[in-house]
């Protein structure tokens, strides 16, 4: 298939940037979206032009490194990551607009690459448990109720990609923070730091400059791991309990 690409090009953090139009030809429907961009970059290299910078790592949907706002949708039209999005989701002759995640706490590094270390700092502020290191404990020594373990496991699939922030009209990272709060808060190992964790992580979230949640729901629709909106409710509930108890 032949495609017209409108891609955000920005030489560096302080460059103004803008959309540039490119043509790619003979794209196979079996290629992933990133492979299609690889084809474009080979063309650009041959012409001696600067290739388009974009993020990727595992290319199997587990690391959360790839991003891209594709035709106004985070990770494109399917419920998956950009690396797992295939060109069969597009038609011959399509025009595809590709932009970086847009959020003040995710500054553009170059072209389509944004700096997501704000998420790392949120995790550092409380997204951990303290445990003694040494040999692994006996697996069944800390029983976890099945429903709680399942919920924790489901939300632990968050890969920290930032699509929720990119899709949210408020630029809020509440789905990401809610996923971490729920993941650790449902398990026995997460209890000792449960209340300070929620206060610290929300504090860091706000400090980074993410917006406030108004429960619009674009985040959950954009999440490649289908983290449900109820983690934000859990976040609010834990925060209320923590503040009530003086944390």
């Amino acid at each position: 298939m032949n495609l017209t690409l409108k891609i955000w090009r920005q030489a560096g953090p302080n460059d103004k940037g803008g959309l540039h139009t490119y043509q790619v030809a003979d794209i196979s429907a079996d290629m992933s979206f990133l492979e299609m961009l690889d084809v474009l970059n080979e063309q650009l290299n041959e012409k001696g032009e600067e290739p388009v910078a974009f993020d990727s790592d595992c290319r199997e949907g587990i690391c959360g490194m790839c991003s891209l706002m594709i035709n106004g949708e985070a990770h494109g039209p399917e419920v998956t990551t950009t690396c797992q999005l295939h060109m069969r989701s597009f038609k011959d002759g399509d025009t595809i607009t590709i932009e970086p995640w847009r959020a003040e706490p995710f500054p553009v590094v170059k072209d389509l690459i944004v700096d997501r270390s704000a998420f790392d700092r949120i995790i550092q502020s409380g997204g951990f448990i303290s445990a003694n290191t040494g040999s692994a404990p006996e697996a069944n020594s800390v029983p976890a109720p099945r429903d709680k373990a399942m919920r924790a496991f489901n939300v632990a699939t968050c890969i920290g990609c930032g699509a929720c922030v990119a899709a949210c009209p408020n630029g809020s990272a509440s789905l990401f923070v809610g996923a971490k709060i729920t993941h650790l808060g449902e398990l026995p190992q997460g209890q000792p730091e449960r209340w300070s964790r929620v206060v610290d992580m929300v504090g860091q979230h706000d400090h980074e400059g993410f917006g406030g949640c108004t429960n619009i729901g674009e985040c959950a629709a954009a999440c490649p791991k289908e983290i449900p909106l109820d983690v934000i409710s859990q976040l609010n509930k834990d925060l209320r309990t923590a503040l009530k108890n003086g944390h």
Partner: protein
Amino acid sequence: MAVSGLLFIGFVLGHMYGNLKAFAGEESFNEYAHHLRVLGEPMLPYSGFLWIMRVGLILALIAHVASAVILARRAAKARPVKYAVKKNNGSSISSRTMRWGGVTLLVFIVWHLLNFTIVKINPSNGDTGGDNPYHLVVDTFDTWWMTVIYLLAMVALGLHLHHGTFSSLQTLGLTGSAVSRARARAAGWVVAIVVAGGFSLVPLFVLVGIIEK
């Protein structure tokens, strides 16, 4: 935001119920308005109850608008560069119109209070109705464009309540599962339809001449 919003939901439900007294006739409607003023007497002075409600509503309004302004500012700061293309996949129209819808309601409330409480503007014959709010209501909604203004305001109110009801429950942490979330969404529909629909009945029935002086 959530707490003040829930207070408003309680208020509009009560207010709507009061308005429906218009169907029971002039005497019943005016009796209700009078009752609101003497409620709690002699423990409270005349209009005491009404003033407690008014002060409560004003405080709630200040809290509500202040939180809205803070959230809007944070959102604007969090996304200084807009997308060239952006799709909405998971959100209701009501959730995306809360800010402008809220401003619309604020303008409506100012007009509404001038209309019925502070100045008592009677658009048909200038008669303020004196102690007869029923006459003022009928005269107002006999004017077709007043009915249109009120009906449009009720559309805005219905939208605001549709998302607001769900959102307040979510913010209070009461929607921790898929089932409770679906219930909160349903509650949004019920509150929106009951309140906006209930408020709309009186203006409509006045306009078509079923409620009359």
